């Protein structure tokens, strides 16, 4: 098992789970670990299944092939839950001696839990690990763009509940423009413009007219839903060939890198939108924490009076950065039409914007953590569809519920520690 754990292509999964449990200096960590250990014992040991699970790590076009790894389901279901119990006990002992539970222990716990869960639910089947991860990244792309938009917007002091609207507007306009011009790149640009327009309304109403930002966000979501659905019914739907059949981006294979097993297909055989996403995540992180722009942005959201005192025009900073946030979220919307589905349908974002919002909070307003949270949500969603295909013993609805439940636990469990930017949600008026 330990060999497998080191081979597993999920070095980022533990990092994803870390914010949920690792940072709390209290009994919360051992309690959470204990609960999951008990779940593991009940599910995998007591209700253990027999058979052999095969983990397929390679895809046929890889540089070299990793053989399919067979795992005895029953054996894994006995050993791993016991290991989990041991880790939980160790954590409890550490806390009782007033020491912090090390991060890597939680990470090992998470990887082991995920591993035994996969093995347990795929008894007698083959799990395409690479395919699972490729799909997870695909589902995560709009969430990540939306979360980045949310992070920027909230860091500058404007709560962005309108991510859903920005995604939807981006999806609609990119489909329309790309269909008319036959240029997916123009569609991408148009999606950014559309997201920015939604942001303009959010910014204008919340900054100029001092309307509550959450209200504007909620109403904007309804407005964009209504507008796109209306225009879809009247314009796009009757003229599908001319207005709603956008060319899709082709997958670009990066030479050499794309042939690495597991990592290659997951990260380097993607469309240009995904590569843009890598750049965006890095740029937002670097910009926020290492440039003058980021400092001004964050100061406007943390302490606008202080920012104003040192000569930053708070409301102008807010306006343009909220617009930027809309442009980024709009890109995520384009992924729906130009990257995956290829054509607009009514309400096609289906709540992705709200999940992105949850990722922002779950990721504690940090671009990297929010990205990881979005990946976790994407992974959970895609895990459900993969397990649905191979026939999981857990009803798919409960797997679909998982990201939402995790978020509730995170928001409730870390309530004291999840601190939004201090002035987020408050209109600023120059005194």
């Amino acid at each position, binding site marked *: 098992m330990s060999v497998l754990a080191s081979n597993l292509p999920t070095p980022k999964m533990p990092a994803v789970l870390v914010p949920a449990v690792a940072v709390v200096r209290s009994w919360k960590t051992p309690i959470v670990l204990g609960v999951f250990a008990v779940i593991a014992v009940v599910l995998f040991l007591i209700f253990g299944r027999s058979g052999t699970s095969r983990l397929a790590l390679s895809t046929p076009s890889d540089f070299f092939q990793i053989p399919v790894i067979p795992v005895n389901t029953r054996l894994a279901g006995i050993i791993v839950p016991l290991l989990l119990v041991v880790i939980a006990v160790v954590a409890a002992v550490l806390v009782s001696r007033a020491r912090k539970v090390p991060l890597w222990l939680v990470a090992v716990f998470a990887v082991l839990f995920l591993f035994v869960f996969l093995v347990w639910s795929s008894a007698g089947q083959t799990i395409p690990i690479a395919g699972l991860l490729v799909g997870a990244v695909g589902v995560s792309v709009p969430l990540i763009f939306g979360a980045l938009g949310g992070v920027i917007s909230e860091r500058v002091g404007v709560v962005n509940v309108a991510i859903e609207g920005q995604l939807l507007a981006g999806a609609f306009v990119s489909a329309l423009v790309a269909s008319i011009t036959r240029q997916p790149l123009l569609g991408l640009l148009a999606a950014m413009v559309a997201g920015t327009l939604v942001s303009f309304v959010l910014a204008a*109403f919340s900054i100029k007219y001092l*309307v*509550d930002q959450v209200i504007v966000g909620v109403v904007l979501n309804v407005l964009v839903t*209504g507008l796109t659905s209306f225009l879809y019914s009247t314009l796009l739907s009757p003229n599908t060939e001319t207005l709603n059949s956008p060319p899709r981006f082709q997958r670009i294979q990066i030479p050499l890198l794309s042939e690495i097993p597991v990592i290659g297909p997951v990260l380097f055989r993607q469309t240009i939108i995904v590569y843009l996403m890598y750049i965006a995540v890095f740029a937002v992180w670097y910009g926020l924490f290492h440039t003058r722009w980021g400092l001004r942005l964050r100061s406007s959201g943390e302490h606008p009076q202080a920012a104003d005192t040192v000569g930053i025009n708070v409301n102008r900073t807010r306006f343009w950065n909220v617009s930027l946030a809309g442009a980024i979220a709009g890109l995520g919307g384009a992924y729906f039409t130009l990257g995956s589905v290829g054509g607009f349908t009514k309400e096609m974002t289906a709540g992705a914007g709200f999940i992105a919002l949850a990722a922002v909070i779950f990721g504690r307003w940090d671009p990297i953590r929010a990205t990881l949270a979005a990946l976790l949500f994407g992974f959970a969603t895609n895990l459900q569809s993969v397990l649905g295909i191979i026939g999981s013993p857990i009803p798919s609805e409960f797997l679909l519920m998982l990201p939402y439940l995790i978020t509730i636990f995170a*928001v409730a469990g870390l309530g*004291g520690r999840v601190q939004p930017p201090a002035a987020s949600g*408050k209109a600023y008026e120059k*005194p």
Partner: protein
Amino acid sequence: MSDPQSGVPVPGSEEIPDPARIPAQDQVLEPGQIPAEQTPPPAPPSRFSGVLREIMSGSVVISILAVVLALVVGAILIAVTDDGVREASGYFFSRPSDTFQAIWSAVSGAYSSLFQGSIYAVNRPGFAAGIKPFTDTLTFATPLIAAGLGVAVSFRIGLFNIGGRGPMLMSASAAGWVGFAFDMPFPLHLIVALAAGIIASAIWAGIVGALKAFTGAHEVIVTIMLNYVAFYLISYLLRTPGLLQAPGSNNPKSPPEKATAIFPHLLGPSYNLTIGFVFAVVATIIVWYLLNRSSLGFKFRALGENPSATRVAGINVKAMYIVGMLISGALIGLAGANQVQGSITTGFGSGIDAGIGFDAITVALLGRSRPFGVFIAGILFGAFKAGGFAMQAIEGVPIDIVLVLQSLIVLFIAAPPLVRAVFRLPAPNLQARVKRSSVSGRKAVVTK
């Protein structure tokens, strides 16, 4: 609270320790007259109350103009997307009158069918047939009023409740389950099913209040997440034989309600209006009494205005959050039960909430979170819904435009300066807007 001559809020008037000042309901007794705003300390939960007050302080004129403005935008949308208009605009410069005629016929056709579908059908013979659309409006308004009241109660305690959908789904399935799985005599079955729905919904919303009270979890996130959890839970129950799924069927749908649990028709079988509307009226009156005449309501409003002061005053804030959300959920539960016992009695699927949970937010905002305001807003949105279906059927204008109209109305009402600018209304006396707080910097806005 303001100087009668200049309309300038009297400085220091908010310092008067007058407990009657705290209730927001007292603030809008006269249109155009807005008392000086209290400036709560920058406590995070109260950020919402400022805008609520902004909305509440909009005068009737602003509200009407907001509706007009939204209808104008809707008219532009209808005209732009109309086939006849596009054809005529192709030769606009040779015969511009054709274009205008096409625009007029498209817009007037759409809005007249909106009116005839929601208020009075002019071309039907006799009053009894002509007024049927209005009873449809009331039918559509029933769940909107109930759920809108529920959301309004949570707004008044300062919680931004986006979770209309979750409680609605829970109540619809609980009421529906009691309605189809048990055998009871007529009025008892109806009442038990209704009570089951209300209790289920109250518990679901109460979770939000409890999490808010004990962990400080942000209610926006929790309500959104619980909406999805409820949706998937109901989806699972509906597709699992032996739970909510109709026996012998493969569809994720419940069996039909038993006749003993169905709301009886109010005006005879030729109208769809059921006794559910009476429940909504009663609920409105109860909420009015609760908020404006009871000590519990006073505590609610105090909490919504200023949680810190409420805590200092010795009111149990945690208990108020929980009780408030329980009541909010109970009211939303009435809407959910009405869906299965009144509207769709032939068995329900996971879409039984029909978006009412989200519409309720806009209804509550439009109604300024006050019971009778919500009642009127609910009827207005009910009219949009009833008329929207007629408009879609007769004129081919998709009902989605109703969403556009509704959201625009709320946006415009929330921003009176914008409406004033559009209609070139006189700006409020500049001097009247000068009063500012040194703490939060929020202006005292005088609308008129």
